[in-house]
């Protein structure tokens, strides 16, 4: 029975690994595949453009009214010349004071930021939770034959989450409305311009929203009815896939506004629309931002569900409840951490695209005024890894047999701290002039080396590897391995980790001896080392569990308080970090509404200090969680009834197996 669950359960990471690799393919094969595909489309467009220009020349010869052509700001044809398009919009306005409205109590830019961020948080919530539901429901269906009790437990969890999602969905719509009104009222001139360009997208967006609602209602209200029949259950499950698809499309459409503002395409230098809406939508950052957000949403969803479960765990009255919520915590964390691991790589892709778009923008981010925000981001990432590891360590203690591995925990903590110290050392150190003199220059001869990219890559890869190792140990904790090749297997795992670490460190050190442009290339083998430990290590580890014996069961419901608070920590860090990254991405436009096309001429065009931004971020975080609490509370209003009903059922239901572990 035990082995069976394991198999089912471990399908989950594999699905994730698969999904992530699919998402990562475009970034890894970016140079080869991307360029060709791009070239093809460009060729086609170029041919079209030539044809058109030939027509144009003819027309001109005949004296027909001429069509105005202009150069695209971003898209280039295969020879590197700007793509041409027919001007079909108005030039970007030079905004004046009359194009802005303000409230006296707070700058408009902050108000719109808050409105935007709140909407985004909820957007992430309603996008992430269906992904969760989909995965959990799918697992539930697969488990049904082997363990109906567990299956119903999964199913119930998915249903419960969906219920909350439903409330959150309407909440999101309200916040979206608020955002829209804020935008229109505070930035009418700018909104007019954006609306002029994105006109068709807005309608599609609205229609998609309608479709999303429809599917959502059918999915939720049809839950009980459709779960009667196995076939209908599959249909139901595929509805969830559809739901997620629509949700993703929605998110991508919404992203196109943001990415257009940051790195516009499809318009000319004056900001005139060149007639191709697809160009406007899929400007250069569209894909990386989208991928980054999907992963981020998964992590965020995990954080929310984790915190929700952790809270219920703390307030649980009965042992059963405790065991249940402990288990939910675990599932949520598991999903969140697996989303977290590839997240930095998606981030690298995004940064690469930013650099490719405008080097200045990249430098502003990494070395200019935004650089300190990245230090703060480093702190947050560190908190996430600390939280995740702390949770894992604490979780281990409730697994029988884990004490074999517990003694290694402290070394892993040491490694984490050392790596994190490297990761957090800023390139530009804040110091007094006297300290500067004492140090003999702006670069410290020792810790100064940690300030550059090589060290950072090394550090983050080591941290990830360490977390993976921790996971593997957790998996093994209560297994008595019986396969004949266990020594070999263990050696293999040890070797993989050892060589990965050696490789990562070696490449990190080697990077100092290379010119900067070649150094960038080293991150690829470093990342692949890390991913190897993830894939190969997990694979070997799982295959060793065949016919393994157990040291004992997992004592669900005995999670320590530190572990529980670690989950709170993770949730709040995710939320804060999400806000921070959003702020960085958006603020790097500095005083532009649309980079280098529409200038922000309002009084609020300055970039905030870190401290002011930090306060707003904290506000956003706390505020959104207050709303989440309200949403959960609203969700629990109906839930209570169900529980009461359930209590009436005689205690015939056996305790779920997973709970017994």
């Amino acid at each position, binding site marked *: 029975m035990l082995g069976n669950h394991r198999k089912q359960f471990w399908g989950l990471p594999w699905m994730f690994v698969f999904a992530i690799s699919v998402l990562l393919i475009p970034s890894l094969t970016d140079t080869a595949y991307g360029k060709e595909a791009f070239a093809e489309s460009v060729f086609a467009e170029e041919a079209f453009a030539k044809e058109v220009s030939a027509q144009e020349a003819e027309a001109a010869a005949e004296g027909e009214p001429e069509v105005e052509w202009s150069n695209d700001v971003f898209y280039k044809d295969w020879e590197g010349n700007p793509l041409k398009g027919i001007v079909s919009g108005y030039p970007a306005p030079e905004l004046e004071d009359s194009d802005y409205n303000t409230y006296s109590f707070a700058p408009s830019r902050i108000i719109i930021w808050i409105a935007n961020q709140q909407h985004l948080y909820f957007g992430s919530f309603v996008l992430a939770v269906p992904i969760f539901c989909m995965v959990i429901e799918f697992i539930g269906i697969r488990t049904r034959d082997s363990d109906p009790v567990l299956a119903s437990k999964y199913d119930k969890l998915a249903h419960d989450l969906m219920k909350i999602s439903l409330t959150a969905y309407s909440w999101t719509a309200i916040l979206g409305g608020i955002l829209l009104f804020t935008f229109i009222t505070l930035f009418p001139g700018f909104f007019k311009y954006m609306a002029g360009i994105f006109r068709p997208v807005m309608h599609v967006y609205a229609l998609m929203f309608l479709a999303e609602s429809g599917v959502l209602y059918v999915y939720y209200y049809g839950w009980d009815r459709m779960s009667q029949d196995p076939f209908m259950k599959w249909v139901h499950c595929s509805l969830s896939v559809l739901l997620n698809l629509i949700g993703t499309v929605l998110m991508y459409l919404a992203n196109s506004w943001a990415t257009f503002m940051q790195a516009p395409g499809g318009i000319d230098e004056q900001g005139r629309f060149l007639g191709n809406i697809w160009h406007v939508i899929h400007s250069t950052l569209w894909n990386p931002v989208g991928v980054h957000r999907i992963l981020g949403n998964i992590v965020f969803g995990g954080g929310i569900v984790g915190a929700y479960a952790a809270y219920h765990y703390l307030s649980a009255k009965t042992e059963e409840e405790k065991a249940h919520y402990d288990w939910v915590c675990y599932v949520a964390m598991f999903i969140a951490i697996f989303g977290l691991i590839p997240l930095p790589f998606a981030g690298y892709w995004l940064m690469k695209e930013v650099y490719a778009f405008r080097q200045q923008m990249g430098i502003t981010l990494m070395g200019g005024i935004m650089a300190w925000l990245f230090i*703060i981001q480093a702190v947050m990432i560190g908190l996430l890894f600390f939280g995740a590891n702390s949770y894992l360590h604490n979780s281990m203690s409730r697994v029988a047999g884990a004490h074999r591995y517990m003694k290694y925990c402290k070394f892993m903590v040491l490694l984490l701290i050392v790596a994190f110290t490297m990761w957090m050392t800023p390139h530009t150190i804040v110091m007094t002039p006297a300290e500067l003199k004492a140090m003999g220059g702006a670069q410290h001869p020792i810790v100064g080396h940690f300030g550059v990219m090589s060290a950072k890559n090394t550090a983050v890869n080591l941290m990830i590897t360490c977390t993976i190792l921790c996971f593997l140990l957790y998996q093994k904790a209560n297994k008595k391995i019986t396969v004949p090749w266990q020594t070999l297997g263990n050696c293999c795992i040890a070797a993989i980790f050892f060589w990965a670490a050696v490789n990562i460190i070696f490449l990190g050190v080697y990077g100092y001896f290379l010119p900067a442009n070649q150094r960038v290339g080293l991150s690829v083998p470093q990342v692949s080392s890390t991913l190897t430990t993830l894939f190969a290590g997990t694979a070997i580890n799982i295959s060793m569990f065949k016919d393994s014996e157990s040291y004992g069961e997992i004592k669900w419901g005995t999670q320590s308080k530190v572990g529980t608070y670690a989950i709170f920590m993770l949730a709040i860090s995710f939320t804060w970090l999400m806000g921070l990254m959003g702020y960085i991405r958006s603020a790097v436009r500095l005083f532009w509404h649309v980079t280098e096309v529409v200038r922000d001429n309002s009084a609020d065009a300055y970039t905030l200090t870190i401290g002011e931004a930090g306060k707003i971020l904290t506000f956003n975080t706390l505020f959104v969680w207050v709303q989440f609490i309200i949403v959960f509370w609203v969700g629990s209003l109906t839930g209570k009834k169900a529980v009461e009903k359930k209590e009436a059922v005689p205690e015939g239901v056996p305790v779920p197996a997973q709970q017994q572990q």
Partner: protein
Amino acid sequence: MLPEQHDILWTFMTIMLTVFTVIAFINVIKHCREQEGINTKLWGSIFGGFVFISFLCTRHMFTLVQGEQLIFIWTQVGVIFLLLLVWGIFFKSAQIEDQSPPLIRAAFFWLVVGLLLAGYTNWLPQQRSDPPPKGGAQISGDITMEDYAEMGRVIVFGAKQVAGQKAIGKGQCPLCHTFDPGDNIGRCPNLFGVEERSHTRVQEERYLNEPIKVGETDPASGIKKYAKTGEDYIRESLECPSCYVVKGYGKAGDTKSPMPVIVKPPISLSPIEVNAVIAWLQSKDTPGDFSKVTVPLPSAEDSAAQAEEAPAEEEGDKPIFVTGTEDIQAMINTLGCPLCHTIPGVEGAVGELGPVLHEKTNAPNRIADPRYEGKATNTKEYVRESILDPGAYVVMNEAEGELFPDGVMPQNFKNMLSVEALDKLVDFISNTEAPPEEG
């Protein structure tokens, strides 16, 4: 954020603290109802009082701004501490053994973590980045000649120069003049090589005597003809176009220039701006070499003195736009119509580059002209069409016996006019007719 603005986080905190007092109140009431023998009225009113005080605090918060808010919130935190103390006494006296609910503990944890993060960001050194000044490079030191000539260029062409399009700045020069070798629209002299010409020109016999002599005052601009140097000549040409008229470009036997006086409305360049234009004219043919520029750089006092006179110096960047709320005179002046047209009823509108606007009488004739291919059927439509699409019908210049040049009139009036403004303008122009003595 400005110091006089509100800090949202602190306001939020006060609201949350008030919510906390409410939670405490509910908790106390709950206990009172569950347990016998507690003085419900006493405890209820005490905690109700806390709620009330907290609420007052919250209300008060909205009138404060940043620094005060931070101080204020500490006093409120003091109130909360007092509440906690009283709450503890309540539990003790009622002998209730209860732990704080997880919600409170979790919220406390969250608050602390969130505030620590905000604190961390405030612990780092702060730096605010202001946007660079509008329209051009950042000048942190003094203005250089290069910047100054660039300012002149902006006055001529506008800040946004777009290839393949005739960009027109505040000076509106490109309406008539051209600046590249071989490029001539035939209305006004090509200004390529004007720097070289300016030096020789002032020596010319014709300059010294025609149409007026050096030292005499030009009646149109009221300026005494004075040029001795190249710089003087260029400035004089801007301020007193009729002091010297290049052969073939004037009216009345090349004695009267069609060019408007550039220091007067509607263009009204300031002396600094005029100098900037001169600097640009003198340096434009030798990019990067400013040795030929003779105008002095403006000092801070100059611009300060000028700022008092003419507050809006940056207008060069702003696109011209009329909303229709202005009176018709101002509107027409803003749009620059008087530069080219003679419009009865508008003071100073005696331009001769374009047709005289006697549209009440002319328009019907124009529509009836066999050359006319536009869509207008009545005067108003015709006027509207002529404004928005000047090329639809090109009027014959009766005096010269040829068509007025096409393409001189700006094509972009549609971007400069609001709907009301257009209506107003059309109404006005449709009713223009020759003054009585002529008619």
